[in-house]
């Protein structure tokens, strides 16, 4: 009987000793004190920072996005936050010029448990165009025949008003490599980006109002607007795309008559608008710069994104267009890349974009 009791006692003590102790530090008690200052200079070269009142603050962490607003003093205090690495973006329209956005961000702010983290964000001026490149599907579907012709680019109108795409251009910027600073760099510091290799344009001229782009909607620009599932079953049906890149100088480019065309304005390029599967620069321009050969003037750039597969490869797109890069998924994976939130553009693609497992043409 004593032996049996000893066995039970041994088991009990063994069990108790295996039980883990609770952590001593609780989660959910971190605090962020944030001050947002925006450069409002319009003519002077000396920055003039003012507190960003009622500015939209986007906090991104492993817990997703959190959207808050600064107070009248440009300050935001957040309490009771879980510990995480936060990337914080602040944006608001310029108080004097609605065509300018004040945008600032800081990355990977380590917010520790039970700690107060204080920081100041200095926002810079970027063009407030209302349109953003929202998704780029470049890598091709799952297949072993090197099929990638189902590429598309998706635009999003994040403004509250109708925009018009008449005369706008979509460019692939992959040149300026030989001796240059790379695709999308401002070679010679003359206020433009260089290396345009493909340039397709919407019909009409900038300023015309024939092709509306309704607020909070998407436009899918397909390389070839057909149902690609008929070729590769894992591909996507783009027969209902809004626009199709059509190279009128190509003898073989298929044209879906039911889908409106963007046409090629570089007659020396005789293939369809195809982009690199894992690394490229895409720029959307207003089309008011008629001389693309010497580079696209920066003020005419509506949005631009550089994507690449390796974090160590060179970032070449001018920082005034975008400071970061989108991480591209592997080629022939069927995966895509898009903004975390529709149209949320802080001019830092590293924060704004994420790879996603499947393409989402026309929706988010």
């Amino acid at each position: 009987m004593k032996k049996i009791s000893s066995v039970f006692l041994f088991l009990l003590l063994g069990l108790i000793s295996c039980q883990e102790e609770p952590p001593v530090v609780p989660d959910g008690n971190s605090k962020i004190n944030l001050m947002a200052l925006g450069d409002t200079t319009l003519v002077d070269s000396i920055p003039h920072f003012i507190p960003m009142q009622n500015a939209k603050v986007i906090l991104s962490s492993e817990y997703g996005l959190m959207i808050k607003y600064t107070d009248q003093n440009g300050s935001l205090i957040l309490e009771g936050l879980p510990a995480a690495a936060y990337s914080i973006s602040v944006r608001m329209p310029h108080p004097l010029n609605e065509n300018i956005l004040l945008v600032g961000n800081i990355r990977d702010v380590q917010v520790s448990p039970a700690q107060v983290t204080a920081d100041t964000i200095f926002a810079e001026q970027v063009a407030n165009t209302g349109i953003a490149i929202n998704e780029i599907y470049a890598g091709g579907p799952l297949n072993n025949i090197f099929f990638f012709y189902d590429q598309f680019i998706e635009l999003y109108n994040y403004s509250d008003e109708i925009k018009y795409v008449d005369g706008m251009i979509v460019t692939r910027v992959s040149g300026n490599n030989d001796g240059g600073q790379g695709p999308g760099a401002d070679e010679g510091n003359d206020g433009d980006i260089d290396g345009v290799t493909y340039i397709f344009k919407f019909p009409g001229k900038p300023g015309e109002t024939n092709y509306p782009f309704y607020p909070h909607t998407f436009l899918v620009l397909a390389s070839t607007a057909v149902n690609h599932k008929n070729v590769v079953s894992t591909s996507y049906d783009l027969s209902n795309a809004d626009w199709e890149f059509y190279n009128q100088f190509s003898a073989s480019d298929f044209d879906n008559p039911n889908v409106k065309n963007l046409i090629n304005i570089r007659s020396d390029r005789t293939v369809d608008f195809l982009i690199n599967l894992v690394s490229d620069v895409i720029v959307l321009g207003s089309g008011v710069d008629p001389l693309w050969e010497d580079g696209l003037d920066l003020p005419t750039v509506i949005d631009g994104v550089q994507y690449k597969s390796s974090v160590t490869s060179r970032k070449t797109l001018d920082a005034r267009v975008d400071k970061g890069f989108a991480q591209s998924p592997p080629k022939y994976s069927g995966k895509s890349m898009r903004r975390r939130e529709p149209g949320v553009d802080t001019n830092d693609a590293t924060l704004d974009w994420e790879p996603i497992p499947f393409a989402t043409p026309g929706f988010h």
Partner: protein
Amino acid sequence: MKKQFYLFVLFWILISTLSPAQQSRLSSLGGLSIGIEDKDNLLTPFDFGNNPAWLFMDEKETYLNISPAISNSWGSYHRKYDSEGDMYYGTSFKGIKPLGQLGTFLGYTSYDYEIRRNYNRTLKYDSYSGEAFFFVDTTAGNFHYNGPKVNLMYSWELLDNLYAGGSVTYQLLDGLKKVYTYAKTIYRNVGGNFGLAYELDKDIVIGAHYTFFDTQESIEAADVNLLEVETFNYRGETYFVPDRGSSVTQKIRKKSSTFSGQLFYQVMDELQAAIQTNYSLANSKVLIPEGSFKEVEEGYASFESFDVQFKSQYKIDENFTAGCYAAYASRDSWSRHSHKNLLLWDWNINNVSVGVGSSYKVTQELMVGIDYMLGWKKIDSTKYIDNRAAYLNSNDHTFRLGAEYKMLGNVFLRGGYSLNMDEYDIYYGGENVKNHSFTLGIGLPINESILLDSHINYSKISPGNNSAIARSFLGAFVTVRLNSF
């Protein structure tokens, strides 16, 4: 007349199988348990303490219970991740076979089918088991679970007056959500139980047993159209980590060990008393795949509980039995985010309850019984990550009434009513909650070797501050007992 009688029996089986649960005489008497004699509710280590070692002494007859059951629950009084209602069907078989001096064998098997209607977003089988982790998608939809359960128990006399017993349990459930994300669940539960009981003398029995469970729930959410599915791993109730992919999986692994002790004392022929106590340690791990083969621990929850119960019954005379009951229980739990080793939730519940009850044979045919229990609960809960804390006290009352009427031919009609009044409902969060429960049953000997026991149960629970919110339950239970097979 005979035809009408069999039609009545058939009708009773049919309405009984219109709704889940345990089949017993006490269930049909409103749940009376303190001051009533019943062969399935003894104070012995097997009945009162679940010690398998005393099976050998408790069960001396061969029988097989076949118990179909059906139940339905519905109503708006539920939590965020509950279903709008549950439909349950099941049948169990329980057989007892005494093998003389070789021991006694108990075999149990069941197959259950459960439909959770509009199960809101959650993909876990049990969303509210006290952990700070929820695994949800974006839709509410019907979830179906079905599967078997098997339990084998054996008890024998190891040495003179020393009894040993053990059991193994295996349960498997397949779950399927019928809408996006079409989550599939495989729920597996393996358990074991080993105990000893020693008869110190004819009046005193002491016992101890050890129980363990190992449960694993594997959940895979994948859209049949090969599009992405979006799921959310909640840490606490506020913050979540989204996860997206063509297939999202999660594993929840739980382990539990319980040490139990029993003391049974036959003070005199008319008076008996028993104490039983349990100390339990359990943990739950949320595992998420990283790469093809590796799983990382996303969260960990620890559970520690202790309870002690005392029960005594005194047979005042042939017709009058009185009893009393007292219990104390304490449950502690905490959850952590494993990667950062941060405390998410910490809660503790202490429970004290006392009760008295009696049953009285008014005539040779009619027996009535009553129980009353008074309970005190103290809840201390801090959900750190959610920035919420609760310190609650609750005084709870339970009344039970039951009556049994013996008709001709050993046919028994039974009825019962119970009322629970909780100042604070720790499960659903309501205040001044009342639960009315009505039962109606029959015990019907078909012939010498077949006995039919059946009851139906209707209950309705609602918080006092809002009569429009309630949850109802209707269940029917049948047990056909074969005394030889």
